[in-house]
């Protein structure tokens, strides 16, 4: 206990750039031949290891990398995981977006490599101007405002349902998703309401051009209102993608629904039925969950990209 605490302190003081936070599980399961995905560990995030495991399950080599590193140019893609980077000070994602390590994420986005921001990661991508980035100049074109929920305020955590849109299917994150599938997925945030005061972006959101995932009801009907739309997002947007399709800001947590065992008992629809009928069957419960398709899509996208080049 004392030793590990000391190691942690030493690492912080010396600016050590090793992947000291990788767990043994992360290291032992990493496929060294697979595409390397950096999972950026900004101070205050808390989903990095679940994200690495989901990437591993999808056939990618996820690595937790600390935000103090500046040698991140060689990674094939990035995931910015969920949590509370910089304790959400000033505004969720605002301080994180201005860190030097995010420059590598910006370079990857411009280079066509896949970049996925989950929850707090989505807030960072919005504050970094990487989504939707219609102008292509990194202008901040939208915000993730505090949830607007009738009769309550603040943090909200619940199972919701998201559906892939036409824009999502063309992106790097919809290649493995079924067109008509309703994906049960957890949301857990206080600031998840996609909004914009830019008329051009508003039009792009309303038309669906930049909305990769929408909140829907369990039956797949449009989720315009709470609780289907859990935060009041404009156009029921759950995920915003850039025009090129390689950067996605996704407010729900796909890494928390990457195995069938993670699907909530109360979830409706085919995924919920599958989860309940798998009760007691460890092999079945260890099978893929609805969120895994995002990570598998990243791999498929990278494979296609590699084949082209």
């Amino acid at each position, binding site marked *: 206990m004392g030793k590990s605490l000391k190691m942690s302190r030493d690492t912080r003081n010396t600016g050590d750039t090793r992947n000291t936070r990788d767990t043994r599980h992360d290291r032992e399961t990493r496929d060294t031949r697979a595409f390397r995905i950096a999972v950026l560990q900004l101070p205050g995030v808390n989903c990095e290891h679940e994200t690495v495991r989901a990437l591993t399950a999808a056939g990618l080599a996820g690595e937790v990398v600390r935000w103090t590193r500046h040698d991140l140019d060689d990674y094939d893609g990035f995931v910015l995981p969920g949590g509370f980077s910089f304790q959400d*000070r000033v505004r969720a994602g605002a*301080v994180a977006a201005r860190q030097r390590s995010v420059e590598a994420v910006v370079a990857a986005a411009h280079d066509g490599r896949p970049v996925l921001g989950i929850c707090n990661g989505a807030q960072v991508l919005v504050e970094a101007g990487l989504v939707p980035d219609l102008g292509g100049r990194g202008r*901040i074109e939208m915000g993730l405002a*505090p949830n*607007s929920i009738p009769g309550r305020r603040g943090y909200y955590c619940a199972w919701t349902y998201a559906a892939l849109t036409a824009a999502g299917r063309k992106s790097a994150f919809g290649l493995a998703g079924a067109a008509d599938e309703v994906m049960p997925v957890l949301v857990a945030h206080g600031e998840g309401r996609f909004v*914009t005061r830019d008329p051009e972006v508003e039009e792009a959101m309303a038309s669906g051009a930049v909305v990769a995932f929408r909140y829907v009801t369990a039956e797949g009907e449009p989720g315009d209102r709470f609780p289907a739309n859990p935060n009041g997002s404009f156009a029921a947007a759950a995920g915003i993608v850039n025009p090129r399709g390689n950067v996605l800001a996704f407010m729900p947590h796909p890494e928390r629904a990457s195995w069938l065992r993670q699907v909530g008992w109360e979830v409706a629809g085919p995924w919920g039925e599958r989860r309940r009928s798998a009760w007691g069957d460890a092999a079945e419960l260890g099978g893929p969950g609805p969120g895994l398709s995002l990570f598998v899509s990243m791999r498929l996208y990278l494979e296609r990209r590699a084949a082209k080049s």
Partner: protein
Amino acid sequence: MISDLTLTVALRGPDPTALTAYYALTHRLNYAEKLAALERRDVWRLQVEASGIAEALALAGSWITRSNRFVNPNKHVYELAAGRGAGTGVGAGGRGSGRVAWVVAWSEPDIEGESAVRLIHARFGGKELASVRRAEVWMLRFGAGVNPVEVLQLGGEIAVARSRMRGLLTNPHFQSVAVVRAASPAAAAAGAWD
């Protein structure tokens, strides 16, 4: 009659949000040569239906101390004053300096204000609390090398996040902002709202 009250709230100790913002501005956004100090206060405007100012202050004081909604007594100090823009600012710096800009930021719709009204009505009964508005007020004090006539322009640059490396304190897609000169955080909020 409706009485306007102004509540100014500050942290008892160092403000980590202000420190982090200051660090980001000076180390990442190139304001190290210009920005000397940054402070932050919460300013609430409460409209209270009461027979007079004294009763309005007594009611509001009771809500503040008993609800835990506006103030956490373990970590905050506060000042409740009668009138729009009233109050000295709970120790806020910047008085008498020509190089201070106040950035007043608020959200529309004001979810914090609306929820405070609902909570007070639900917990204490009655409808004396007519409305609440909340603003986050930042005090930006610039260094001696900055020309006082540039202060509001620099405050505006810092106040509104336009891109990753331009601006920080507010997101223009859901927050409104005003950059003003004022004598206190409360006066700055009043200057922005009225």
